Structure formats: C-alpha cells, structure tokens
C-alpha cells in the first residue's frame, strides 16, 4: 500500500515523458527555425544583391566605324580647343550608323536607330579628340556606349520574346541589334562610368563617384568633430567628474541621445544649422555636423567602456610615482584605452556612413553631376544615391542600385573588419 502512490507517480511521469520530450524537441526546433529564418533572410539579401548587381560592372558597347571628319569637328582647321569642344560629335556617331544601315531613311526610323547609341558616345569621341587632335580626319573602329534600353536587352534583363508594348525597345531595334550581333559588333565591356561618374538621367552614364566623394567629406567632418569631443567627454565623465546630479544628467542624456530616431537629428540640422546659422543646403559640412551629433553618443559610450576596462592598478602606479592626475590619464590610461575607443569610433562611423534619413532633411537628395571638391560644395551621399536610384523607373537602374548597395556594404564591411581586427590585435587581459 505504501508503494502504491510512488509507483503511480512514477507511472504518471513515465506516461507523460514521451509527450514532454516531443515538446522539448519541438521547442528546440522552433528556436533553430527562428535562427535559420534570420540567417536565411541575410543569405537571401546577399544572394539577391549580388545576383542583381554584378551585371552593373559591364556595359554594352557597339563597334562602329567612326569617321572623325574634319568638316564636322573643325571646319576651319584652326584646332582651337573651344571649337573642338563645341563640335557636334553625336553627328559622327549618326553618320557611322547610317553607313552601317544604309537602307534606313525614314525620319522616325532614323530616330529609333540613333537612339540605340547613348548620348555619352559623343562625349567619348570629344575626349578622344581633345586628348589627341591628330585623329581628326581619320576613320577608327571604336566601341561606343550603347543606350541603356539596348543594354538591358543584351544582358538579358528584358526578354526579347516579350510583346513590343511591354518593352522599351521596338521590334525594329531588336532586328538592328541582331544584325549588329551577327557582325560581332556588340560586346559587354567594363563599365567605367559606374565608378567615375556622378548622377545622370541616362543610366549608362550614371555613377557613384560623386556620392562616394560626398560621403567621404561627410565622414571626414564627422571624424574630426565627433572623435575628439567624444573622447574628451568620456575622459571627463569617467576620470574627473565626481558623481553628482549634473553628471547623472549628462549620462542619462547620452543614453537617450543614442536612441533618438535619426530623422529627428535631421530636423535639428535643418532648424539649427541651415535656418539659424545659414549654412548652405546640400553641403557635406552640414551632413557631417548632423552625423557627428548622431555618432557622438556611440563614441562616448564605447570610450567610457574602454576607460573602465583599464585596471585601477595602472592608475595607482602612475599616481604612486608622482604623476599628476592629468599625467596619469593622458600618459597611461588613455594610450591603453585608445584601441577600444578607436573600435567604437569606427563602428560609429560605419553607422554614419549608412545613414540616409537625416540627410534627406538637409537637402542632400540633390541631383549632383559634378564631383564635389570641398565640404561646402553641394553633394549627395552613397546611401542617398541608392535611395534616388531605387526610385528611378529605368530597368537599367535596378542593377546599378544593387551594385551601389554592394559598394556601400563593402565599405561597411571593411570598416567593421578593421574594428574587429583592432580589437583582436590590441585586446588585453589584465
């Protein structure tokens, strides 16, 4: 009788155990599934980006026999650079196309034919003549830039079998393209504009360089402002300030600033830097100011962590041999904390590089063709360029958007990898 309840409990447990183990496995599978969902999205992102983006490295070009006729470029033969620069080079391209397709004569058809070559082809001819005026009057076989509508067809982004009203190229153009391909006059070559040009309405002439330079100037401003300020604040709070209401207030402030939505910083930049101080709109200087206020809390928090990691024995030793407090901090604690501070700074800068919302507020969504030369020139930033391109309707911008994102991600990867290396290399265990 005394064993009976014990046995029944045992039996009850044994009966339930299979169900409990099943639940256990289910729970574990759920956890693994959640993790895989997260990682799966990451993989999907990179797969899509690389799949969409790598084709932007190439650009379709068409081989044309261009007669650099003197009567078009420089009728007076004076070789005056101004006249050479102003000549109608696109006409040379048109004539080259005419020679290839002599039976096309109707005006509308001619316009279609001419639209297969990018307006950038003329610029390329101009550059060639400017670099070497002696080519005038000779005929060259040149790979000229194709229009983006042709480009997407050649790369296979737009199916040739689609009905005509669903693509931007006509059946006639496809026929010409096929004729050109039959003569081996169509090829995909390295897309140098993508890395060297600024914004353009023609996708084949658009590039990320001006946005990259704008981002660089912005980060430069951010670094010169946020790093010294952040480190100085961290040193003050960690080493000098006595704990009182005032320092508590500063601390609470810093923690809250780290979580303020970035767009609010944009409002601050607009109201204070642009409206009150009268700084120019669209300038990397203003962008850098806004981003440094945004990055400051990140740097301060990381720097404080780096300072607390320095053991008190180092401070005591310095004080013990007669260093003043400032000497103890500047000569001994700061050098030891510096790698940690730099790591935090790089991570903060990486975040600043990827930020775009506040830049929209201060007018950095401009259409910038020229490469900015100083932090005061109007410019845009890499993530903003991505935003602008993502909004563009042309199919050829899809691959460029993905490629620009990849470039941005490479920058971020390099910065974060540097931070991790720095931490690994200088990490000390006391």
């Amino acid at each position: 009788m005394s064993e009976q309840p014990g046995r029944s409990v045992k039996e009850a447990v044994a009966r339930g155990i299979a169900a409990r183990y099943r639940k256990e496995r289910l729970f574990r599978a759920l956890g693994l599934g959640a993790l895989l969902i997260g990682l799966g999205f990451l993989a999907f992102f990179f797969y899509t980006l690389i799949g969409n983006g790598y084709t932007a490295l190439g650009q379709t070009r068409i081989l044309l026999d261009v007669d650099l006729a003197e009567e078009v470029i420089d009728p007076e033969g004076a070789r005056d650079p101004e006249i050479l620069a102003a000549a109608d080079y696109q006409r040379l391209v048109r004539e080259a196309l005419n020679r290839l397709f002599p039976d096309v004569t109707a005006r509308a058809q001619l316009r279609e034919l001419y639209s297969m070559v990018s307006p950038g082809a003329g610029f390329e001819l101009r550059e060639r003549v400017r670099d070497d005026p002696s080519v005038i009057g000779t005929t060259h076989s040149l790979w000229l830039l194709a229009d983006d509508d042709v480009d997407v067809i050649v790369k296979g982004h737009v199916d040739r079998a689609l009905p005509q009203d669903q693509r931007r190229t006509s059946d006639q153009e496809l026929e010409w393209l096929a004729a050109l391909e039959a003569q081996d006059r169509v090829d995909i070559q390295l897309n140098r504009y993508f890395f060297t040009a600024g914004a353009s309405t023609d996708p084949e002439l658009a590039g990320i360089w001006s946005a990259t330079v704008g981002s660089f100037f912005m980060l430069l401003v951010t670094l010169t402002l946020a790093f010294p300020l952040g480190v100085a604040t961290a040193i003050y709070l960690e080493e000098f300030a006595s704990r009182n209401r005032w320092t508590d207030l500063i601390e609470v402030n810093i923690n809250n600033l780290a979580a303020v939505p970035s767009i609010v910083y944009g409002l601050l930049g607009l109201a204070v830097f642009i409206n009150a101080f009268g700084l120019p709109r669209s300038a990397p200087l203003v962008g850098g100011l806004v981003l440094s206020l945004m990055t400051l809390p990140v740097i301060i928090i990381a720097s404080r962590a780096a300072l607390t990691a320095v053991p008190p024995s180092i401070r005591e030793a310095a004080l013990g041999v007669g260093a003043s407090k400032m000497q103890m901090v500047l000569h001994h604690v700061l050098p030891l904390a510096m790698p940690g501070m730099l790591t935090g700074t790089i991570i903060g800068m990486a975040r600043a590089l990827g930020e775009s919302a506040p830049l929209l507020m201060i007018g950095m969504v401009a259409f910038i063709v020229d490469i900015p030369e100083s932090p005061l020139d109007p410019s845009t930033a890499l993530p903003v360029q991505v935003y602008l391109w993502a909004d563009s309707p042309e199919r050829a911008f899809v691959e460029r958007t993905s490629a620009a994102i990849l470039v941005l991600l490479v920058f971020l990867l390099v910065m974060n990898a540097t931070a991790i290396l720095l931490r690994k290399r200088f990490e000390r265990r006391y």
Partner: protein
Amino acid sequence: MASSTLLIAIAALAILGYYVGRRRAIAVAVGTSVRAFHSLPGYHGGYVALWCALPVVALVALWVVVEPTLLRSAVLDGLPPEMQELPSQQLGLVYNDIRNVVEGNIAATNADSVIAAAAERYSALRTTSRNLLAAAVLVLGLTGLGWAFYRVRPDFRARNRVERTIEFLFIGASMVAILTTVGIFLSVLFEAVRFFQQVSPLDFLFGLTWSPQTAIRADQVGSSGAFGAVPLFTGTLLISGIAMFVAVPVGLMSAIYLAEYANARVRSYAKPLLEVLAGIPTVVYGYFAALTVGPFLRGFGESIGLTVASESALGAGLVMGIMIIPFVSSLSDDVITAVPQALRDGSYGLGATRSETIRNVVLPAALPGIVGAVLLAVSRAIGETMIVVMAAGLAANLTANPFEAVTTVTVQIVTQLVGDQEFDSPRTLVAFALGLVLFVVTLVLNVIALHVVRRYREQYE
C-alpha cells in the same frame, strides 16, 4: 578659403608659442638650478601656446557672430533713402539680392545699378573687415605670447595651469551632449509652437483627416489643409505592430536557441551573422521592401484572390521586422545569459526538461529585460524612416487592414521637408510638430526601457 588660412595662422601661432615658451624655460633653467623649476619645459611651452590660441579663437568666434549684423546695417545705411523706407521683409529681399550679386549667383550685369553699387560696398566692407580681423588676430596672438613668455620663471606653476585648462576643455566637450538634447528639443519645439499658433493642437492630435497640401489660391477647394494626425499615428502603429509581430517571436526564439541550446561554435558564428542584419543600412531594407517584397506580396495576394496594395503596410512591416530581429535577439540573449545558472540547476534537479526550465524558470526571470529589449525595438520601429519612405507610400488611410497602403509619421516628416520649403506655412511646420511627437514618444519609451533593464540587472548582482 580665407577662414582656413586663418585657422592655419592660429595653429602656426600656437606652435610658435609652444617652442618659444619651451626654449625660454630651458634657457632659464640652464641659468638657474634645474631642480628649482616647478614644471617641465613642455608645460611652459603649452602655457604660452594656450595664451596664443585661446584668446584669438574667442575673438574669431565673436567676429563671426557679430560681422554679418554689422555688415548688414552698414550696407543698408548706404542705400538710397527711398529704399531704406521699404518694409523690413522687402529690405531683407534686397539684401539677399546684394549678397547674391557678391557671391556671383546673379551676374552683376543683370542687377540694377543701386544693387550693384551696394554689392560693391558690401564686398569692400567685407574685405576691410577680414583684414581688420587678420590684424587683430596677429596683434592679440603676439600680445598673448609676449605676456605668457615673461611669466616663464622657475617658481611658475605652468603645469597646473595647463592641466586646469585641459580639464575645462573636457568639461566643455561633455556639455555638447546636453546642448544637443536641448538643441533638438528647443528647435523642434520652437517650430512646432509656430505650427500650433496656426493649427490647434487638439485638431492636430485628434483630427481624423490628413491632407497637408494647402492650395496656392485661397479660393481653391481644401485651401486650408487638414492636419489631423491620427491616420499617421495609426499607420505608424500598424507598421510597427507588424514589425514586432515578426521580430519578437523570431528574435526571442533565436536568442533562446543561441543562449540555451547552441554549442559555442555555432554561437560564435551565428550571433555575429545575425547582428549583421542590424548593420545593413536601412536604405537597403527599403530597397528590398519596395522592389522585392512589395511586388511579391501583391502577386501572391492576387494568386489567392486578395487585393494587396503594392505599397502595403504588410510589406514595409515585414521588412522592418527583419531589420529589428537582431535588436530583440541580442539584448534578450544578454539577459537570458545573465540569469544565474543556479536557477536552471534547481529546475533540472526537480526533473524538468530543458524547454520546461526555459519556459517556467528562465523566461520569467529574464522577463523584465526582455520587455526592455522589446520596448527599445518598438522605439526603433517607430522612428525608422527609410523603409517606410520607400515602401509604405503617402496615402493617409485610417485603416487597420495590413494589405492597404498607410503612411507614417516619419514618411510625412520627410515628404513635407524635402524640396522647396516655406518656413511660414503650416505645411512645412507640421513636420516639426510630428518630429516633436516622435521625439517625445521615443524618449519616453527609452526611459521606461532603460529603467526596466536597470532594475532587472540590480536583482542578480
């Protein structure tokens, strides 16, 4: 460019001061006993350099603030009397014209003769002012240098002075954080108050219609514009809600798996990889939401007979949820790992399985921390901008249907402020009122979250 020359000149002056002071200290020390010197030569150098640079920097800052006002009044005084009698707003326009001519934004040939003459006066005055400033900088810097130079004596406590100054610089730097908060709050508040002078706060907070575009002519339909922000608030909540619906289960379960089940190897790879999701710029998520997820959802909806807007709340919310996963998972992971092992061991000792231990012991113990993590994630979702700007659209629908397009607070801030702005119309100012709401809400959420997290931490320490 002139300002950078000035900066270089000040830096050069300071460096000169440093070397002069240091050499002077060494020279004096050689003449007397070295041991009698209180401070090292470098500190004397630093002291002289500070005396060179700090007064000059203060002077330049003052000049930058005062110069435009003085220039303006001087130039406007020179205008013919009939122009001076213009109302102040028109006078401001005239002054802008003058400045534009000087900056070369308007060709001087197109401007009329009065403006051109004023522009000439302006640039002449500005040149004089710059020259004066350069001279003043030089004089003040050299005076400071000379004064500090004669204070280099063995018993002079240069180190203490220099260290005090550096400490004040540190204190000044820490003020920037406070100034930023105050600056954000005041600038947003100031513009928001201007908005509330034109539109009542009650209409703004509780109005149900949002159509901020004011007509150009007063007699057009809807000329007043409607600034009821409730559709924006519900839109924001809807999208954030969808995002949390994705992020909380996925993030929490990943954190549980990583903290309780995964071995060290898996953990060391999976955790940083998951955190990469937080490092991807938000504009990239926006691109995905707009170009991949949006069309996919619409196609999927069509195939099962649902009408899904191409800019649906669902698409934006899903993608935002993915972005937020690491915020939930890494904070939850921290709090779950912080639960003492003794609690788990006690539970195992009573015969509980792992999942039972997690559900009945670990999670309740970690709950405050998890709640804090979720609150932080919510504030992140509410303030997120790029994803919704690119994927959520502008239609201010008052709806709870995730398949429809909604708009959010952040989208409307961006929309009202991108492009040409007029800073006296409620159309532009409403962005600041929305910004104020956003700032206050996220601030409150953060304060609560930090408070909850902190209280929880104290429990086990």
